[in-house]
């Protein structure tokens, strides 16, 4: 260990003195000093929010650790206690993984954000502007415009590019069937979100029509994206719930999850976490700092924390 640098010796001494004086004055929270493990997935708002929450916990004197994780597999880790929380549980994409893990035991529901989400098939705005399917966003327009949405492997039918099958199973093929569109449209499952964004980008360049699965709040909101209006959702209308399948997606919730031990090991941090409540607008702001202003995720989180003290200070009190 002879490679050790002696540079910050001065800083170290100063910091030591400061922390000594600080420690005597402030009563420490009862939280454990074990780090709170926050997962990092691969989309902007989630990462910024991870650092925002981390900053909040740190301001309360907690230790925080970030770990990259797959967004589906993470619930198994929360269950086992390797990851402490997840702060963006999207209803239709992760709801299944979340409830599966909860059923096995070890995951608790730590409340719901006030942000509502919508996850639905839709078209980029230029499709409507160029009138590639007159009558959109009403779904009935789909009855006679499928020629503008064919691809080489779709066998003459129009193509819906749906997310990976792990997200909603056969929901979309069943919906096409139920709405009587199955002879004109077919569903292709993309492998991941990257594939969806790539399709949007390449369709835009080529100026061709495309119908993709998307959600809001999302960074694609900035370029203009219109969701197709299907018949309204009601409880039990889906085929998998025994309904006739003639309905669109519900306004979805955005939840928070935590390991079952979190409230006991870090009572103060858990209380703060359960109070955390972001609106659609706030989530959009966080994503925009990165996607539009091209900031680094950590810097974006710092900026958000600095600009919104009024929002998060009451949570950590």
């Amino acid at each position, binding site marked *: 260990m002879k*490679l050790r640098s002696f*540079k910050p010796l001065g800083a170290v001494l100063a910091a*030591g003195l400061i922390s000594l004086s600080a420690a005597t004055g402030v009563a420490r929270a009862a939280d454990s000093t074990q780090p709170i493990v926050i997962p990092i997935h691969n989309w*902007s708002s989630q990462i910024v929010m991870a650092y925002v929450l981390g900053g909040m916990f740190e301001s309360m004197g907690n230790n925080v650790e970030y770990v990259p994780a797959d967004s589906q597999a993470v619930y*198994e880790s929360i269950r086992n206690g390797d990851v402490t929380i997840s702060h963006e549980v999207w209803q239709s994409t992760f709801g299944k993984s979340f409830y*599966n893990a909860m059923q096995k035991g070890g995951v608790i529901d730590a409340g719901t954000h006030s942000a509502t989400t919508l996850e639905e098939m839709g078209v980029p705005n230029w499709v409507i502007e160029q009138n590639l399917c007159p009558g959109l966003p009403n779904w009935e327009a789909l009855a006679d415009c499928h020629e503008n949405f064919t691809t080489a*492997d779709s066998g003459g039918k129009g193509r819906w590019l749906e997310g990976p099958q792990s997200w909603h199973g056969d929901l979309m093929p069943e919906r096409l069937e139920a709405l009587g569109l199955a002879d004109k449209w077919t569903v292709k499952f993309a492998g991941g979100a*990257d594939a969806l964004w790539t*399709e949007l980008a390449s369709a835009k360049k080529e100026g061709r029509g495309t119908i993709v699965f998307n959600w809001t709040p999302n960074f694609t909101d900035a370029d203009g994206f219109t969701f197709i209006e299907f018949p309204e959702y009601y409880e039990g209308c889906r085929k998998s719930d025994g309904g006739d399948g003639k309905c669109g997606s519900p306004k979805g919730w955005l939840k928070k999850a935590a390991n079952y031990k979190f409230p006991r090991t870090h009572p103060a941090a858990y209380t703060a976490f359960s109070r955390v409540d972001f609106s659609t607008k706030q989530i959009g702001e966080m994503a925009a700092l990165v996607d539009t202003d091209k900031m680094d995720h950590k810097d974006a989180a710092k900026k958000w924390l600095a600009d919104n003290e009024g929002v998060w200070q009451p949570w950590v009190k």
Partner: protein
Amino acid sequence: MPELLKQRKSLQFLLLIIIFALLCLIIPQSDNNWLWRLPPLLKELPGIINGSVDYLMFEWWPIEVYDAELDDYEQKPLVREFTRSVSSVILFMIELIREILLGGVKTIVAFTSWDWATENQWARWPALPWTVVTAGAALLGYSLGGIRLALLSGLSLIYIAVFGQWEPSMQTLSFVLIAAPVSILLGLTFGVWAYKSQVVENVLNPLLNIAQIMPHFCYLIPVMVFYGIGDHAGAIATIIFATPPMVRLTLLGLKKVAPEVVEAGLMNGCNNRQLLTRVLIPTARRDILIGVNQVIMQCLAMVVIASLIGAKGLGNELLIALNRLRIGLALEIGVCIVLIAIVLDRMSLAWANKQTDYFSSQSFTERHRNLLWFLAIFVVGVVLAYAGRFIFKDGFNYLYLIPHNKGISTAEFWQAGVDWIWDTFFYTLKGFNEWLITQVLIPVKNAYLSMPVVATFTLAMGTGFIVGGVRSALIVGGFLLFIALTEWWDRALITSYLVSVAVVISGTIGVIVGTLCAQKQSTSRFILTMCDTFQTFPSFIYLIPVMMLFGVTDTSVLIAIVVYSTIPATRYTVEGLRSVPASLHDAGTMAGVNRWQRLKSIELPISFPHMALGINQTVVFALSMVIIGALIGTDDLGQLILKSLSDREGVGNGLVLGFCVAFIGLAIDQILRTWANQRKQMLGMT
């Protein structure tokens, strides 16, 4: 006629194909017909596996563990405690190296506690300034391989620093510096063991095959359940993936050692250990070093996948960049990964080659010259970093650590390049793409899907029988039977269709390019470097442009597979041709052959076994890419493997699906390997 049939294998094949075609024609497509599709008798298997893993992990043999956090005793199963202690050892080692490079608190915590470290905020380990690491790497390069290696390593690290990827790169490096040596040691140990004992070899061979062919995604969830999430889990998944080629090549090298050499060693009075370390391993060095190269390449090829289960560093940054379609940034990160791979590879090669230097008595300064130099660099670097604190006022000390994503970036340039490719080629490629899909891919796919199961078995087992007799036929049949009895036979057929089209293309390109490049020393060096580059360059990066040009279609999947699986075909061809002894060339020249005749009658036949191994590896690489195909969007086994990440019975489903993929590979491996061995025997090469 029967006599003739016995003699001529081509006739046997012809007969086999006629029977196959007849079976395809006469068997009706009906789900109740067992000749068309077998019933899914193994349907329950994933559930059973899942149940056993859960039992092992969460119930079997509970022990009382005191949890200081909850101030309570908890029942924890033994296996879990064991695997978690393995995890913490690996994690400790990774963190140690990481904190030497980047600073931090984990190592201090390991010796004290979080309580103590939280109380004592001063107890933070400082990072080595990037200047010291870079100059140190250049110095190490110089002492190992002279000025060229010094330049390579120095410039690579400067690139990494200047482009603002220092932090993730060092995180990745620290994780590779543990995963690679562990894989190499494991590989050597098992390789030697297999050399000494035929039984071990027989047991290891299928295990290695499975570990290598099984898509990494299949064991991500089991690894995560057993070892938790984090760098250690990433390292373990990497080790599983990177060790097999090392074992293989060690064994191959040791087997090639001539008995005369061993006898010479014994005559000189070597004991067993000396024989191994002084005679066998040095003689087999060539192949063992290829093994080391492969381990390093595989480790860095796993960087992105490992980040899905918690490995910090470049892989994670890459996924984030790609999710925002920032191809330029992703490309810069990809180059960092390749540079780390190449520097590590060249350094380990130089180090291994240096072992033969026996230097005579030297003075203290001579012996420790490099260490002294390093100390000097260290002092200068630290002083510079300290001075930097007064120069840079905006909070970033560029002489200490260049902050992440604050370096220069050429992302715009690359983005423009992608746009240019689009503008120039899109409409030409679109026509080609449509032709390929409608005229080639869809018909081939449908042909595969319309094979009755009994016809597939006849074809595969018949081929096995013609090539390797009853034994091969039974082995191949066994593998297929497993797949046919799961519910995923149709999906396995789609996987096979993609893989067989890809292998035909890759094999052709690989053998041709390899043969052309092997003609000269310089071109073969160049193409081998290209192989290293493409093997470690994360395929995710070129997937985005490929998807933009070819859409979410099978063409994109095919291109992704071909780019990756052409590597072994090329590499093994070049290496095989280059290893033909010069004396044989001379002998040929004296016998009066021209260039073409020499290639055709001397070099190709001699290097044939090595090339066959290359095609074998091409199949393996192609199969391991099904999951990447799934990330684009397919309806084969890969799609379900991807889905198993969120399934309730994810562990079981993932593993069984993985076995299906591996068994396709093993069936092909059985046929190819037997055939290659026969050819070798025919040429008198064993």
